[in-house]
Each structure stands twice: as C-alpha cells, then as structure tokens.
C-alpha cells in the first residue's frame, strides 16, 4: 500500500504493509524519537500529532495518515524550539523515555488551550505516564512553555 502525507512539514511517499501501525512506520523511517511502551494506548510514549490532534501511534493504522499532516517530536523540536527549551530549563525529565510523548502532548495543548491552568495542564498530560519524576517538573515545563508563547 502506498501512502502519501506530510511528515514534519515535508511531503513523503512510503510503502506500508496492510495493518502496519503508525508507530512502526515512523520508527522505520528512522524517526526513533517516537517511543513505544504499553502498545495499548495508555502510556502516551508514542504520541504524535495527526492533523494537529495528539494520537497514540501504537493504535493508529498507518493507512489512516494518507493525506494527513503528521508531526513527531523531531519536527516539533525544530518548529517549536521554545518547547524543548522549557523542558530543558525546568528539567522536565529523568530517564527521558516518556519525554518525547510529553513534549508532543504539550504542543497539542498549546494549540487546544493555550491559556491552560495548572489543573488543566495536569488533566491534559494525564495520558502521558512518567515513572521517574513525580510529574512536578513536567507540569512546570509545560506551564513555562505556555507562558512564554
């Protein structure tokens, strides 16, 4: 199956097997910033933007991105340097395996609800697990990013 879509702002055309998942398609293209853990849409590690909406790419059929606009953490890091800056400055990570998903989710929040309160941030990021930090610095990173935009 041939798919054409924009990936991080560039037009791409790729072949995908029937039933292939978006997370595998993206990672096979060398964009390994998108991670996978739970495989059931719970942990948020594999979050990417499809037409501006955050989706769990482990549950998303690759076929569904035909004609869509897809952004991964690599593209967002270039497009939104302030986002990376906020996570670096507030140390919104420890092991870092959940961080790309947190960053993508935060980018989605910035579009959906740029004036989000702290409670709204915590509710929004609830789809992204972190086992290391206790979440305080992640919340602070997202808050700082929204405030600086």
């Amino acid at each position: 199956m041939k798919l054409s879509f924009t990936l991080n702002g560039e037009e791409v055309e790729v072949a995908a097997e029937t039933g292939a998942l978006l997370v595998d398609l993206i990672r096979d293209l060398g964009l390994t910033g998108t991670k996978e853990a739970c495989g059931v849409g719970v942990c948020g590690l594999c979050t990417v933007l499809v037409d501006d909406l955050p989706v769990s790419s482990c549950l998303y059929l690759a076929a569904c991105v035909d004609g869509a606009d897809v952004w991964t953490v690599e593209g967002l890091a270039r497009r939104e340097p302030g986002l990376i800056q906020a996570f670096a400055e507030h140390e919104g990570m420890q092991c870092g395996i959940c961080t790309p998903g947190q960053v993508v989710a935060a980018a989605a929040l910035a579009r959906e609800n740029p004036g989000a309160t702290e409670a709204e941030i915590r509710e929004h990021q609830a789809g992204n697990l972190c086992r290391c930090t206790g979440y305080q610095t992640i919340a602070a990173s997202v808050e700082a990013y929204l405030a600086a935009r």
Partner: protein
Amino acid sequence: MPEVFRGRDDARAKASGAARYVGDVSLPGMLHVAVVRSLLPHARIAGIDTKLAEAADGVAGVFTAADVNPAPYGRSVRDIPILARGKVRFAGERIAAVVAESRRAAEAAAALVEVTYEDLPAVLSAEEAITPDAPAVHEEPWSYPRAAVRPGDGQNMQSRVVHGSPEAVEAALAASDHVIDGTYTTPSGHQGYLEPQACVAAVDGSRLRIWATNKSPYRLRSQLAECLGLDPASIEIQPGPLGGDFGGKGSPMDIPLCAELARLTGRPVKLVLRYTEDLTATNPRHPARIRIRAGCDAGGRLTAVEVRALLNGGAYAGFKPLANVSLHGVEECTLAYHVPALYLETVIAYTNTVPRGHMRSPGSPQSAFAIESALDELADLASLDRAEFRRRNLVRPGEPSVTGKVWAEARGAPTLDAAVEQARLSQAQAPPGWRRGTGVAVYAREAPGMAATSVRLIPVQGGRIRAEVPVPETGTGSHTVIRNLLAAGLGVSAADIDVVHVGTGDLPGDPGVGGSRVTVGMSEALDRAARAWRERGGPGEPVEIRSGPDAGGGAPPPAVSSYCAQVAQVAVDLVTGQVKVLEILSAVDVGRIVHPAGHQMQIDGGTVMGYGFACLEDLAEDDGQVTAANLGEFRLPVMADIPALRTVLVEGGQGVTSANVKPVGELTNVPVAAAIANAVADATGCRIRDLPVTAEKVYWALRDRAEAERRQK
C-alpha cells in the same frame, strides 16, 4: 570552589527525541526475535513442534533448549535456564525463540510453534510453597551454583535469613505493658519502567557485542562469560542510557538468549519485549506477608520486636543479587529505631509464578508498611501520640543500629520533628462530608560502603574535559551529579565538562547502578581523580582512577544514615470508602545536594511511586497467570492523580566522602504506604493491613465495624 550548577546534561537530547536507547539500535543485517512462552504455570514439556514456524515467511530459525547453552544463569544463584528444559515453572517462561527478518514475521511465526504440555500441580503462593506436601518447583534447588539453601532446608526454599533470639523476644514481650500482633500483606508490583526490556547482540568472530537495558554492565559481562563459557575480555557491553530501572534492569534477563541466537544465526539479533511480557515474565516485586509482634513499656519505650516475613520469590531465585538471596530491606526494617530485643526471620519461597526481583529499596516498602503500621497500632494501645511514640524510640546519637554500626550522626528526631511541624502548618481541606486524617511514618537507611569503580579524565581541545564513566545514566541524573562533583573538585565550570558513558572495554570496572550507591561511589572516585588531575605530569595527560575498598587509604569512615519522615493527609468518604490523598509531606535528612533539581525529582518521583504502591498498584494474578497484564490493568499514577507534594530538607547532615553526600534515591518511596494507611486509620478508626488501600477495602472495613457496633448494642 565555584559551584556553577547547570541543568541536566542530557535534557535537550531527551526532549527532542535525539537520545538513542537500546530499542533504537539498528545494525546492518539485523534479525528480530520473538519468544514463545509457557501458557501454564507448571508443566512438563512433552513436545515442541517448530515445523510450521520454520516454514513461515522471513524466518531464519526457531530454537529451543536443545540448541542453547545448558548452563543456568543468575545474579547470585545460577538457576535460570536460557530456554526451559524439560519443564516450565511459570506462565510466561521462555520455551523457544523465533528469529526472523522482521519483528512482525518473528511474532507471527512464534504463534505457529506448538508446545505440548503435561500439566503438573502448581504451587502458587508462598504460604502453600512451604507446606510439607507442596509440589516441588525445582527438584534440587540446593544443587544450583551459589544456592543459599541446603538439603533439608525445605523443598521450595530460596532463602531463609534469621537475626536475633526468639527467646529474648518472648521474654521481653511477656514483660511488656502493651503488645501488638498484626499481619500485613502487600501485593506483587512492577517497577513500571517505561522502556521495555531490550537487547541487541552481535557476534563478530570471537567478539560478542551487547546493547542491553542493563544497569550493571561489568557484572553483566561476567555473568555472560560464566554462563556461556566465554572470555570476559571478548564481551563488550555497549554504553547508552536506560529508560528507567527502579531495580528491574539489573539482571541478565533475555541477554544470554540473544547472545546465543546471534551465535546460532551468525547475524545480529534484536529482542524488544512487548510490555505485556515485561509485566508477566520479567522480575517484578515480591508479594509479602509480614507478621509483626511488638511490645513497649508504659512509657512507650519499645521492649521487643519480632518480624516474620514470608515472600513469594517466584519460579527462579537468580534475579536477586545478594549472596544470601534475601531482600536487605526486610532485614533492616527496624533500622530507624532502638530495639532492645529483636527477632527477625525472612523466608523467600519458590513458587510457580513469575520470578521476583529487586524494586527500588528491595524489601523496604513491604516491611516499612508492616512496621510503621504496627507502631501506630502500638502507640494507640499505649495511648500515646503516634509521632511522639516514634520519637521516643528513634536511634539516638552514639547508639548502635540493628546492623551493629554506630552512625556518624543519628538525625531521626530532627527529621521527624520537621515533618510534623511543617505538616501542621498546612491543613489540607477535605471535601464536604469527608473525614480528614493524618498519618506519619519513618524510614532510615544506611549509605552503602565504597564501591570499586573507575573513571578517566581526558583533556580535550579548548580546555574542555572529557570524563569517561562506567555507569549508565538510568535517569536519576547521575551523569549530571558526576559533572557537578567534578566541576567542584577541579575548580572548573560544569559547562567545560562532558560526561561520557563508555563500554566495558574502556574502563576497569564498576558494580553498576543500585543500592543508592552511584553518587556515593563516584564521589570518592571523582575526589581521587581531581587530586590526580592536579598532580599529573603535564596538561595534556589523561588521568585514570580505580577506587573502592581495596584502593588503599586508612580506616573506613563512620557509617552514614539517612532518615525520611513523611506525613500523609487524607480524606475518606465514609459512605463509599473512597480515599483521597490530599498531601504528602516528606522531610528528608540530607548532606550536600549536588544537583538540586535532580535531588528533588528523586524525592518527588519516589513519593509518587510510594503513592502508587499505597493506593493503586497490584500486579494481580489468578491461577498462576498475571492478569494485570497491560498498563491499563496495572495502573501507575498519572499526573492528574497525584496529591500535593511538599518537601522539607533537613539540611546540615554529615554525608559520605569529602563531597559530603547522602543517598536519596531509595528513601521517599518507602514510608508512603504506611503514612497513608495510618492516615486512613486516623480518619476512620479502620486499619487496612493489606495493600493497596482501595475504596473497596475501606468500605468493607467501615461496614464490618458498623455491623460489630450494632451487635454490641
């Protein structure tokens, strides 16, 4: 000493997706592995039919026990087979491995491997395992290399450790004014690291290269060498970050299998577990049943404590690293207190369930829940304030602890006082109609001894310094701590130092991450490295340091302890039993803090993990199968769940080495559960002795009590 702190050295790479983990490694010609696992907890393998799988698209080979090295492996006891031989001992055990051109092809073919089982009676709990007629999990567990048991110790015994005298305790309890006798149980749980276990292995002539989610690369190298009969020098464990550990990534896990598959196929192989495999077939936390008997005099002084712990060790003991195959946290569970008479027995049993391993301060969360709940109950019997009762019994300066060591200082009292005072200042609001409660719990641990580690400093262009280290960054911020310690020791800016994790071929050795030892062990090595750097012959010369207990240098320094006291505030809905944790305050006894943001995250992350243990997490099993087999069923705390977290740093503590540091990674996760259970008891009068504290348990406890009160009238 300029202390120019900067942020984490890995922050940008991690936030932008550029950081590469084991799962991101790809080698030319690499094949992918899928594992065929046992469906039954205990069965004889009557046959394995691999024909269909071998014929499937893209399959390079299907391998069973007959193809791989028969030597069992392990961290201490060598009892884990690379692939099950003859029988399976838990549901999830590796039986065969399929190697194929893609992960998808490997997984599809693995489903075609047909295993014929002859079901055997299974032993599914520790209680059952130690009964005389229990089925044998292993025929001769004492015959494994480095077994901690002997014939006659019991058929299903992994270990039995005893401290103190039961007679002295009986006599002291008989003479006590108040005695509590309670049994406390905690469920299995999972480390919950979010990077699945993964391994890439490549054989190239006589050289074996390994990329693996393993935090102790030098130990892994010797474990592999021993199991596979290889020269350690021929094995290179490659450097790289880990996506979380919490104790779960210290064992060889599937790495010996991958090494064998790379040899058998002649191509690099990669195995990344599906998270269901992590939950059902790796090395989760030991479920525990702990009986505490404790007595005190009329003045609230402890007279005696008896601890009898029974833990489910699962099908293999090889995931525990200590030579006595026990969990030191259980042995040290009364460390915070002066206990005149102590008897402690801790038994770990083999069962036909997933093998258990270490999880953040192994044994401590379980035993602290038991001890700190029991002390609350005893304080109530003695009609004493629960914090005051603890204060009267904390180890005092100069008093030896239960390990027999006299600490450089004993700061239990100021730490407890700080927690109680600060918590009093913020009375969290309960929702209307809910009952508020406050609970306190205390934990102490000793800093580890010096570890044999190594470090190399290399001058590079532009006045920068490359610091090569043997420890992987598991997420704790250890590389940033190393950078900051080195900057202070050398009197240079942290901005001029690059900390680089190197492979096992590049430095002499290190015991790996664990036991809160990295900051402590590295601080000594960096101290020596800084001295050697100043005394070296010329500015272009590198410096290499080996440090540790054998590296010379006088009498051992006095033992250092760290205390953590927590106060939990909860609200309980008396109608439904629902518990809301409003706030957890942690007072932490600290020395010098080398990387403040990282230090705080160890405190907060630990507290949240403790909250999960207290209120949410239960790696539930049914009939020998882990049923909480995905992260929807095994629920970790999310950002919206967590209560208000407050920290009080009790500063000015005396730490280890000239860096004056105290470990912090395994403190705040420990007392939380008891603090919350104690707060629930304070709010409702109902004592929950079984974790997690769920609305259902509180509801039934409230109902049972109401029923009992009705009957009394």
